[in-house]
C-alpha cells in the first residue's frame, strides 16, 4: 500500500515537473499557444488574486492584462524547476506594488506588512453598517467585505493559502517574506477574519 502511494506521489510529482518544464520551454519560445493555454488555465485564479488584493475591479482588470504581458516578456526567466503558479503570482504582486508606488508614494508597500498595526483586534469588533447588513444576505459578499477590511498583507497570505492551496514556502516566495513572517500573518489574519465574521454575525 505504501509502495503504491509512493509510486502515485512520485508519478504526480514527475508529471508536475514535466509540465513546468513544458511551460518553461513554451515561454522561452514565446509560443502564443502556450500562453493561450496558461491564460485559459489561470485566468480565474489570477483575477481573483488581483481583485482581492487591490479591492478594485478596474485595477484588477488592468493588472490582469499587464501580468500576462509581463509573463510573455519575462518568460525566459521562468526555469521550470518550480511550479508555475508562484512565479505567476509573484509577477502579479510586483505589478500591484508598482501601481501602489505610482498612485500612493507615501504608502509604497501596503503589502509589506507595515499596516499590521491596523489589524482589527478582538476588542474592535466590526459593527456592520446598514449597507453591509444588506450585503450580508449574500454570504459571499459578506465574506468578501470582511476580507476587504483586512490589511493587504494579510489578505494576500489568506488568499494564497486557502484559495490557491499554496505551501508556506511558496507563499513566502510570492510574498518575498521570511517563512516566520508568512506564518505570523496567516495566524493573525485568520484570527482577525474569524473575529470579523463572528463579531459581525453576533
Amino acid at each position, binding site marked *: 500500500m505504501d509502495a503504491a502511494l509512493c509510486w502515485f506521489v512520485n508519478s504526480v510529482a514527475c508529471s508536475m515537473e514535466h509540465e513546468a518544464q513544458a511551460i518553461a520551454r513554451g515561454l522561452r519560445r514565446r509560443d502564443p499557444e502556450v*500562453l493561450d493555454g496558461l*491564460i485559459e488555465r489561470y485566468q480565474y485564479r489570477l*483575477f481573483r488574486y488581483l481583485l482581492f488584493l487591490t479591492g478594485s475591479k478596474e485595477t484588477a482588470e488592468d493588472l490582469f492584462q499587464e501580468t500576462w504581458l509581463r509573463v510573455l516578456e519575462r518568460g525566459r526567466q521562468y526555469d521550470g524547476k518550480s511550479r508555475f503558479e508562484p512565479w505567476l503570482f509573484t509577477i502579479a504582486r510586483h505589478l500591484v506594488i508598482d501601481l501602489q508606488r505610482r498612485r500612493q508614494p507615501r504608502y509604497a508597500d501596503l503589502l509589506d506588512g507595515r499596516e499590521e498595526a491596523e489589524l482589527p483586534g478582538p476588542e474592535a469588533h466590526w459593527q456592520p453598517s446598514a449597507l453591509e447588513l444588506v450585503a450580508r444576505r449574500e454570504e459571499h459578499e459578506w465574506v468578501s467585505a470582511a476580507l476587504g477590511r483586512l490589511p493587504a498583507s494579510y489578505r494576500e497570505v489568506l488568499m494564497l493559502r486557502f484559495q490557491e492551496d499554496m505551501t508556506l514556502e511558496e507563499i513566502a516566495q510570492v510574498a518575498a517574506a521570511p517563512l516566520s513572517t508568512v506564518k505570523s500573518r496567516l495566524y493573525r489574519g485568520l484570527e482577525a477574519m474569524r473575529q470579523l465574521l463572528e463579531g459581525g454575525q453576533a
Partner: protein
Amino acid sequence: MSEDLHKHARRLLAAARVEGISDAEQAWLETHMQECAQCGEHACSLARTIGGVRSLAAPLDPALVEATRRRVHFRARELREQEARTRALWLSCALSWVLGVLSAPLLWRLVAWFGELLSLSAPVCLTVFVFTWLTPAVVVAALLAWWRTQPVRAHSYGTERNHALATTRGESEN
C-alpha cells in the same frame, strides 16, 4: 480545565489549518475537543471562516480574457520581430567586421597607389584610408540602429489594443 489548555487547543486548531500538526498533537486535540464544547465551537468558527475564504469567487468578464489574448499575441509578434531585427543587426555587424578586416590590406594598397599617383603625403593617405575603411560600417550601423528603434506596426497594434480595452470596459459597464 485550565485556560492554558484551551489556548493550546485553539493554537493547535489554527496550526492544523495553517501548517499542519503532528499525530500526537492531533490525538491530544481530538481528546480535548470531545470534552470541550467551547473549543468545539471555536473549531467550527474557524472552519466557517476558511470555508468562506475558499468560497470567494471573482466573476471574470470573457471579453477581458479575449482582449488580453489579443494583446499578448500582438506583443508576442512585436517581440519576435524585434528579436529578428536584433539578430540581423548583430549578423550585419559581424559580417561588416569580417569583411572590413579582410579588405583592409587591399584597401590600403589601393589608397597607397592613389597616394603615389597623386603625390599625397603619408598622413593624408592614412586619413583617407581610415575614413574610407570606417565610413560604410558606421553608416550601416547607424541605419540598423535607427531601423531597430522603429515601432513594429505601431498603428495597428495601438488601435487594436485600444479597441480591445474599450470593448472590455464598455461591455463590463453595460
